[in-house]
């Protein structure tokens, strides 16, 4: 019977993969420079391209960007799924644990705090790499604190509230820093907080991909435990799940996924929260063996689409991707809340 079930989802998976391929191609064929679809193809397969720069644009700008979008969307969506199951709360996501706020704090301290430590930090040092390091450190600092608290506090709802409080504290510190910093620094921070998947080189992309690979691997190892958590922590324990170890494993997976993504691409809202719910509409199951890959694919597709829209085809301007994901994500969350009056997570 389970096999029959797996078969019926095979079609959905093929569909998702097909859509992913299509959106990936759509994403690389659109951008500020108008490259006809025919030549996008030939550039991809090493054919003849009339303008040399087109090939360069596609291989060194658009393809890394498309892969970044896949990693960012899939990783954020997966971390959202992990959080929702762990916290038994349909509105949980990487933001709720304070991981994203931690990254913001790291970025803010570097970008805005440099005026306070002006003797220390040379302004020219502020390149993208240091930003990534600062944001990663910030998110892992919060993650570390959350993990220490998680070992002391048994109740996950309390942990959720602590995560929210962390978010408030960090955003308050960011506001204070913003108040004392000058316009140029503030502008840099605001641009980072808009989110972007387009600034990664191939090397950075490989680094991001490796971290996300580890996060996905840890998630796959948590699948059985995640299923047990669907019954609640006491039941999970009675099924032989070691609570502390499993919670730690899931939190580390989330931290790696959400932390690295926020560091490289900025805080991108709503993907982690909304995609697991959208996926559950297509896959009518709570089995994480199905949900983990499905959520990753779904998130990747959504991110590619959002980035394609943000690109504003054939124009030079790029909209902040955080705005696009919010525009799509917020209505989904409202729809969920309205529906939740009748339906449970």
């Amino acid at each position, binding site marked *: *019977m*389970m096999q029959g079930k797996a078969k019926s989802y095979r079609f959905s998976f093929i569909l998702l993969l097909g859509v992913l391929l299509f959106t990936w191609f759509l994403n690389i064929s659109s951008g500020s420079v108008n490259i006809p679809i025919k030549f996008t193809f030939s550039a991809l397969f090493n054919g003849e391209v009339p303008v040399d720069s087109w090939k360069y644009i596609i291989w060194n700008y658009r393809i890394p960007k498309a892969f970044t979008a896949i990693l960012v969307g899939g990783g954020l969506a997966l971390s959202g799924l992990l959080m929702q*199951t762990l916290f*038994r709360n349909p509105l949980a996501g990487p933001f709720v644990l304070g991981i994203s706020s931690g990254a913001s704090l790291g970025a803010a301290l570097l970008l805005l705090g440099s005026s306070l430590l002006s003797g220390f930090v040379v302004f020219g040092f502020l390149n993208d790499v240091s930003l990534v390091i600062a944001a990663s450190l910030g998110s892992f600092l919060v993650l570390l604190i959350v993990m220490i608290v998680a070992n002391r506090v048994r109740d996950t709802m309390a942990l959720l509230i602590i995560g929210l409080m962390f978010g408030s504290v960090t955003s308050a510190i960011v506001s204070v820093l913003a108040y004392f910093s000058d316009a140029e620094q503030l502008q840099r921070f605001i641009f980072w907080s808009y989110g972007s998947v387009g600034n990664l080189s191939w090397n950075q992309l490989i680094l991001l991909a490796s971290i996300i690979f580890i996060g996905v691997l840890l998630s*796959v*190892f948590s*699948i*059985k435990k995640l*299923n*047990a*958590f*669907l*019954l*609640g922590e*006491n*039941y999970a*324990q*009675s*099924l*032989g*799940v*070691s609570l502390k170890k499993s919670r730690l494993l899931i939190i580390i997976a989330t931290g790696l996924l959400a932390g690295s993504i926020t560091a490289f691409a900025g805080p991108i809202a709503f993907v982690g929260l909304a995609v697991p719910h959208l996926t*559950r509409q297509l896959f009518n*199951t*709570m*089995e994480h*063996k199905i949900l983990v890959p499905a959520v990753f694919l779904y998130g990747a597709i959504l991110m590619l689409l959002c980035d394609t829209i943000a690109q504003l085809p054939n124009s030079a301007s790029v909209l902040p991707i955080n705005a696009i994901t919010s525009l799509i994500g917020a209505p989904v969350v409202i729809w969920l809340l309205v529906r939740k009056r009748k*339906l*449970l*997570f």
Partner: protein
Amino acid sequence: MEEQKTTIEVKSLSIGYKNYAVAENINFELQPKELCAIIGVNGIGKSTLLRTLGKLQPKLSGEILVEKQLLENYNPSDFAKQTSIVLTEPIASKNLTVKELITLGRQPYTNWLGSLTTADKKYIVESIQNFELEEFTGKKCHELSDGQLQRVLIARAMAQDTPLILLDEPTTHLDLYHKVQILKLLQQLAHQYSKTILFTTHEIDLAIQLCDKILILDGQENPFAPPCELIKEGCFNTLFPSEMVKFDVKTGTFKVNK
């Protein structure tokens, strides 16, 4: 005479929380095929006892032996093969289907990814059939009535295939018919499948009629015996303050003082 197998043995157990004991001096032992109710007034520690026996909460002192082995010597996954539990708390995700929920009962036996073997599937199908849940398998848990959900939760515990099954107030929120249905089912499970079943309840009348043994939690003596003996010894008379309700020895029920 054949040597009796003891599923669970409890010796001078105290339960409670860090700073204070809820109940002390608890002693009992149960064999396979025995259905036992834990009764007592609200707040006396029935649920605490059940959670302690289910290894969800540490004991204060004393010994608990499940299948002749101390509770603290079990690692989590081995213990899950000895004891299954049905709690009063609602399950976290009511979006689970009946079949998915019952399948989770096989977790202690499956591999790291939770893949089901033929044997696992057999247990699941058997559980579904035993509890007459065939028509519900595809339904979500939030679509079920309280009585149906309770049956599904017991079916999950059954699929876990453990010698000992603990249930915390399996009959609350149910009407008399469904209360009797659930308790008859537990009795049948214990006798047919040689399970040891221990549950907390407020249905003293029904427990007297259906259970093989009863443990009365009163915090001091904690008498444990077959129901008839407990009646003879007058243990039920002092359970509640006598100005309100009185135990009628002849009928084995409680009567309100008029």
